[in-house]
């Protein structure tokens, strides 16, 4: 354990190295492209080594190991406010995943961003993001976690808005930040409440005084009839909803696809959006405190159903999208729903495991889509693709692996993890399980749809070539630094699923016999197969001939398809309600300031002026002209007398002085 403590003491290095790189990069000129990318990759590589060292150090222990290092940040009152870093399996696995996947995404990005004028800046942001994300992962303190959480949000903002000159990107980054911030308010309140109730924000301490080690004290009454722990958990989960794009705060994620594709892969698929799930996992003791499988806490129910609903809801939307990245974005939403649902069902291990596998294959898919976009000269509309299998064979193979993994086809990674998720949900709620199974079906369907639209058939990009700058060009395979990462990741997408059991043990889950294993697995394989078949039936049999052809599904579903395509009109609904209300509020208070407050002020001024006018007319004209002048005459008369004294003759004054002295002396004697 001493070794572990030493490692925990060094955990801070994992985020610190990319941070240092970011600091240096921020000062580099635009031309230093290679230096910037090199720094970024090197930092990530070293960080990865550190993370792997920590990861391997936690392996092979009989039970869950946990080492922390806490330090004082500042003092207030008589309290030392402490922050800390942690090394435990959850962290170690996550850190290893983030650094590893991140590294390969960075490699891919060197190719994807090759021609961008702000290349240097891009890698600076990437480094910063890596630092923040790793900080989030290794922090042993909910506030430190929150701070890094906000910082990854910042990087997300910066990277979504990387092509800031596009109005859509500018709007999207703002939307992303604000939407997650709404969730963060909940998170923040949760932190405050936790701090209030436990007096510490460190999750674990060596002495056992950490917040999570004292969950037992938090079972008193909180709000809305919940226990304190549940209240905190609910608040924290609101934050997770924002970050992990759970309904109803999911709206930012698809828009975030305005960012460069490696960003989508890294932030909006593999790491940051999973931070919500990770956080729930990290705070899991709070969620389950005071509940059981039979009588779960409200927090657990909320997590479960929000996850399940999001999984289904997003999957339906993904079905009707044409943008290659948006399909993946909604898919991500949906998969995050799966993870959240698993957590809600009490399955920490399946949730986290699905997070890991999903990170690999979703990163793979996004990078693959990035390759496609580059290969087709920045085309994102799937209707204008097609037949890429011929032009981009490596990409095709990797993408196929990713797709199969996502669709839950055995023996790819997604199958195992999703199966576990479904299984654990099945134990808890049949309704959620049903929704999830349907979502799994849709997943298989829309991925198949995408595969066929993109890779099958013939190249439709030339349809209106003149209008597009690159439209007339043939697609081409991407350079090695773009395909190598997806190739590496595809290996993991294939193999990672087999480590599920080990992972469960690693996280300290007890082996337990779950009912309905066969049913769930069978059904899951069945719906997966059905989905793929349906996809083939609709899209593979007769691929689209022209970009302008209607989607086959559209003719089948009609209005519903439009509705799905427009994402159930959620954005429009928000636009009409919340955003409108906010803007009205802004205008209202502006008008209040201008009209009411200043109005009162100005009326006071007018009243004062009026009074002064009255004073002038009544007081001045009447009294002064009428009465005071007469008085003045009197005063003037007496003044004339007095002025005789002020003759200007010094000796007169002198005389008066002398007389005065005499009078004083006389008075003195007479007294």
């Amino acid at each position, binding site marked *: 354990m001493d070794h572990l403590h030493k490692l925990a003491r060094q955990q801070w290095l994992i985020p610190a190295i990319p941070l240092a790189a970011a600091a240096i990069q921020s000062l580099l000129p635009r031309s230093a492209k290679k230096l910037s990318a090199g720094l970024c990759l090197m930092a990530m590589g070293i960080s990865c080594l550190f993370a792997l060292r920590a990861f391997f150090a936690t392996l092979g222990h009989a039970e869950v190991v946990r080492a922390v290092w806490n330090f004082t940040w500042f003092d207030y009152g008589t309290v030392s406010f402490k922050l800390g870093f942690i090394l435990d399996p959850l962290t170690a696995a996550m850190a290893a995943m983030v650094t590893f996947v991140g590294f390969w995404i960075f490699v891919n990005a060197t190719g994807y961003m090759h021609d961008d004028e702000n290349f240097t800046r891009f890698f600076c942001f990437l480094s910063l993001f890596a630092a923040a994300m790793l900080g989030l992962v290794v922090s042993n303190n909910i506030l430190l976690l929150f701070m890094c959480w906000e910082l990854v949000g910042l990087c997300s903002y910066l990277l979504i808005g990387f092509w800031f000159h596009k109005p859509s990107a500018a709007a999207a980054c703002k939307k992303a930040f604000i939407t997650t911030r709404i969730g963060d308010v909940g998170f923040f309140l949760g932190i405050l409440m936790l701090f209030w109730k436990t007096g510490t924000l460190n999750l674990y301490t060596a002495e056992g005084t950490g917040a999570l080690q004292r969950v037992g004290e938090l079972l008193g009454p909180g709000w809305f009839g919940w226990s304190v722990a549940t209240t905190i958990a609910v608040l924290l989960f609101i934050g997770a909803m924002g970050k992990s794009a759970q309904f109803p705060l999911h709206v930012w994620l698809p828009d975030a696809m305005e960012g460069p594709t490696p960003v989508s892969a890294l932030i909006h698929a593999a790491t940051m959006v999973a931070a919500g799930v990770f956080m729930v996992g990290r705070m899991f003791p709070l969620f389950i405190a005071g509940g059981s499988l039979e009588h779960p806490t409200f927090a657990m129910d909320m997590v479960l159903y929000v996850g399940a609903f999001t999984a289904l809801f997003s999957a339906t939307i993904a079905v009707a999208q044409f943008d290659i990245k948006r399909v993946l974005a909604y898919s991500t939403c949906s998969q995050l729903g799966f993870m959240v649902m698993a957590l809600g069902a009490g399955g920490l291990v399946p949730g986290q495991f699905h997070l890991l596998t999903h990170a690999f294959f979703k990163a793979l898919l996004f990078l693959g889509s990035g390759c496609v976009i580059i290969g087709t000269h920045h085309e994102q509309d799937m209707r204008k693709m097609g037949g890429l299998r011929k032009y981009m064979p490596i990409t095709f193979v990797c993408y196929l692996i990713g797709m199969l993994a996502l669709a839950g086809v055995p023996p790819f990674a997604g199958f195992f993890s999703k199966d576990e998720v479904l299984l654990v949900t099945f134990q808890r709620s049949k309704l959620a399980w049903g929704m999830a199974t349907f979502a799994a079906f849709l997943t298989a369907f829309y991925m198949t749809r995408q595969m066929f639209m993109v890779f099958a058939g013939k190249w439709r990009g030339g349809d209106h070539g003149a209008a597009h700058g690159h439209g007339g060009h043939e697609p081409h395979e991407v350079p090695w630094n773009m395909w190598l990462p997806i190739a590496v990741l595809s290996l993991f997408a294939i193999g990672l699923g087999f480590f599920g059991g080990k992972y469960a043990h690693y996280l300290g889950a007890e082996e337990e016999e779950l009912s309905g294993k066969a049913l769930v697995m069978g059904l899951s394989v069945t719906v997966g197969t059905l989905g793929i078949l349906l996809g083939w039936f609709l899209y593979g049999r007769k691929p689209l001939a022209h970009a302008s052809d209607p989607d086959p599904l559209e003719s089948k579903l009609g209005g519903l398809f439009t509705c799905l395509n427009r994402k159930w009109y959620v954005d429009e609904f928000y636009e009409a309600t919340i955003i409108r209300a906010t803007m009205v509020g802004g205008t209202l208070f502006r008008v209040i300031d201008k009209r009411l407050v200043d109005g009162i002020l100005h009326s006071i001024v007018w009243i004062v002026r009026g009074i002064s006018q009255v004073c002038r007319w009544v007081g001045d004209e009447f009294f002064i002209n009428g009465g005071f002048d007469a008085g003045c005459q009197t005063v003037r008369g007496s003044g004339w007398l007095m002025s005789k004294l002020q003759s200007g003759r010094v*000796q007169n004054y002198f*005389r008066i002085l*002398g*007389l005065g*002295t*005499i009078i004083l*002396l*006389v008075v*003195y*004697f007479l007294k």
Partner: protein
Amino acid sequence: MNIAFWIISAVAVLGAVLAVTLRNLVHCVLALILFFIGIAAHYFLLRADFLGTVQILIYVGAVAVLILFAIMLTHNVTGVDGPKELLGVKWWSGAAIAATLAILLKKAILSDPLATLLPAGDKAQSSVAEIGKALVAGWVVSLEAIAILLTAALIGAVVIALEEIQKS
């Protein structure tokens, strides 16, 4: 030494009276100098040697000369006496006020027991060094203030007197 007091007092009073009554301005100043010397002598009598010397240095050596210069700058000094000013209303009123004041003051002084106070005995001269030490130790701020005042007065006097010359 009583006799010294009376003689010196007589000289001082004589000087003072002449200084304010003589018709010729220069005579007035000469009488004033007599008065100053009388006062200085009183200081010597009162064992304030330093003060006496200062009195001569400043009043006789400086102020009187200053007044003489003022007279020479404002009068036809080679001319004879000024106009008669005595015995007008102004003279009478002034003299009456002064006389009344003197009488009242005398009454006031004599009504106080301090008036009969005698010196405690023969004493040595006061030490100049003591005065010097006091000046630069406890009273240094006052000393500086006086220095500044004198400088200002010097400059002021020059400015006032020079003004017209500059204009012309």
